[in-house]
């Protein structure tokens, strides 16, 4: 079957896969152990879990390693793996007030009850290339750990568990209300079990955003701040830490399953009021994702607010635009499907085009090129 170049078939597929392996190993590098990889590529793995929609650090690490670090591919593998697992239970809603907080900041107030806790972050470091990492010595890690632990005060460790929230202060004052959008669709749906329908209930929006691609959310969140929207929220609170997960088993007993690390963001915005004389109040845009992924948390919070105020003039306020186009596995798959052969569809379009050009040539000589060019824009999609 050698008459069309792309028809290589099964041999081509296995040869291509082999070539990937060859390029990976031809310099005989030291293979990386998942146990080495997992703590050292933590943030990449967190992203894979978030976008892969499955909290499974080991599986995510394996996926990321398997695909040489491509987050899209790794998330995709995790989603596909997830689809093979039957959904047996729904957990109780996690309560982030129970969080063992590792990091907690608010940009709304200088001081907050419980205090600002910077926690593990690179936010205030200089982004300088660190050549010393080229030759890391185990000795230096040991001495670092020894020095770090030596400075800890074991008496103070007990105190850090959990805190109330910044928005509690605003709620107590009444300037932020619980029923901000009383007419909102609050049904709980499961986007992994059914296709979304528009307008989408808030539960589905939040689920979609939590699984969405970080870069896509950032692009839209940023656009909303930069002038294609009216949202420049304030980070009411951003916290990162471990929360317990529980579920009720078939016998009705509540079971503790373990802890997962999440990033939670509450973006404070203002609800526009339509009625004259009505007092404006504050709203919360909510972001929650697996692991530590603060960009995603913040952008999700902004977009949650934006999606509650539909406005098709701004991409970020447009449900269909935001939710469909930030879905990473779908976007990634479809953009890459352009690599598949399209000769049948192209042939069908080409015939149309030639007809038009031919007709133009016979009726008004001299114009076929322009007509054909205009017709290209009408070429059907596939």
């Amino acid at each position, binding site marked *: *079957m050698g*008459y*069309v170049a*792309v*028809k*290589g*078939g*099964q041999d*081509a*597929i296995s040869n291509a896969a082999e070539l990937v392996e060859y390029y990976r190993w031809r310099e005989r590098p030291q293979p990386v152990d998942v146990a080495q990889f997992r703590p050292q590529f933590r943030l990449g793995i967190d992203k894979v879990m978030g976008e892969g929609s499955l909290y499974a650090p080991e*599986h995510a690490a394996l996926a990321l390693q398997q695909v040489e670090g491509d987050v899209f591919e790794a998330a*995709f*593998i995790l*989603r*596909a793996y*997830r*689809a*093979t697992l*039957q*959904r047996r239970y729904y957990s109780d809603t996690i309560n982030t007030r129970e969080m063992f907080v590792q990091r907690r900041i608010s940009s709304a107030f200088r001081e907050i009850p419980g205090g600002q806790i910077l926690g593990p972050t690179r936010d205030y470091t200089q982004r300088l290339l660190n050549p010393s990492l080229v030759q890391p010595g185990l000795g230096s890690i040991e001495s670092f750990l020894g020095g770090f632990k030596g400075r800890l005060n074991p008496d103070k460790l007990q105190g850090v568990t959990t805190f109330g929230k910044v928005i509690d202060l605003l709620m107590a004052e009444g300037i932020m209300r619980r029923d901000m959008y009383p007419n909102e669709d609050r049904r709980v749906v499961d986007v*992994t079990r*059914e*296709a*979304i*329908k*528009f*307008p989408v209930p808030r539960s589905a929006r939040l689920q979609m955003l939590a699984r969405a691609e970080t870069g896509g959310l950032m692009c839209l969140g940023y656009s909303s701040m930069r002038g294609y929207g009216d949202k420049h929220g304030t980070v009411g609170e951003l916290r990162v830490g471990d929360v317990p997960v529980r579920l009720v088993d078939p016998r009705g007993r509540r079971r503790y399953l373990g802890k997962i690390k999440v990033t939670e963001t509450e973006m404070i915005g203002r609800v526009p009021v339509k009625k004259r004389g009505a007092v404006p109040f504050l709203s919360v845009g909510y972001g929650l994702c697996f692991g530590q992924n603060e960009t995603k948390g913040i952008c999700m919070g902004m977009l949650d607010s934006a999606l509650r105020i539909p406005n098709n003039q701004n991409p970020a306020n447009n449900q*269909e635009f935001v939710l*469909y186009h930030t879905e990473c*596995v*779908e*976007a*990634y*798959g*479809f*953009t*890459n*499907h352009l690599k*598949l*052969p*399209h*000769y*049948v*569809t*192209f*042939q*069908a*379009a*080409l*015939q*149309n085009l030639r*007809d*038009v050009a031919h007709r133009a040539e016979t009726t008004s000589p001299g114009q076929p090129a322009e*007509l054909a060019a205009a*017709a290209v824009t*009408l*070429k*059907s*999609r*596939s």
Partner: protein
Amino acid sequence: MVENTKFKASYNYAFIDESTKKEVRRKILKAVCIPGYQVPYSSPEMPISRGWGTGGLHLTLSLIGQGDVLKVIDQGSDASVNACSLREFVRKMTGCQVTFDTAAATLLQTRHRVPEEILTTKQILVLQVPQPEVLRGVERYEARTRQMHAEADYAKIWVSLYEAYVRYGTMMRGSGYPIRVNGRYIATPSPIPRWDVPNLSMAHCLYLFGAGREKRIHCIPPYTRVEPLAFEDVHFKVEEFEQIRCAASGEDRAFMDEIYDAEGVRKFVVNDSNFLDKLKAGSRPPQRLFMNPE
């Protein structure tokens, strides 16, 4: 001690878990009951990229059983890399029999072609669909297109066909020509060439359309009327391959691929690879041919 089974579980028969397969089958039944209507479904992620045939795979995997014989076609060819990859995946997950022979298959999954050979009552053709919403080109928003379908409000698509006609003298719909199914819903036949569209009407087999990324299933049941959209005085036409013969078999009356050899000389070859093989072997399988109106 509790055994660590984290990486030990093997995959379920046909990959997808049973309750999801059941859900997909129920949605298929709904689609059969309302020909041309797009039924939303869960569309779980597959290990194949979105846009590469996941919708087709969902249908194939939820329908396939021990006795099925599978054929996978991509742009007419069994040997195309993506066809190989999908066929191999289904075979690995089910242990089913696979074939290139159109007549021998019970379940056929295809991308952008309907086989030239007439399909029978014993066969199901699963078509992969990139964009199930035929109105998307004239209406951007899903919420509105669903309403338009519900109200059978198809003015916009008729206008778009009319405009294309007055501007170019033809409808300018290469592949994926819009069809009306059973006199009610306007639907996409998936991006098959116009050549294949007449074969959808009053066929013996069941046509299922799966759009994985967009999470929709629609269907043309056997013996259902399918009309390509056309005006009283402007008719639907299929691609014409006049005075063209296949360079490999010498035959005509089939959808042709246009190919160029190393010297840049244009040739045509029958697109349907199994049909071509049978032509080369000297037997022309039964075909339904559509004659363009004068």
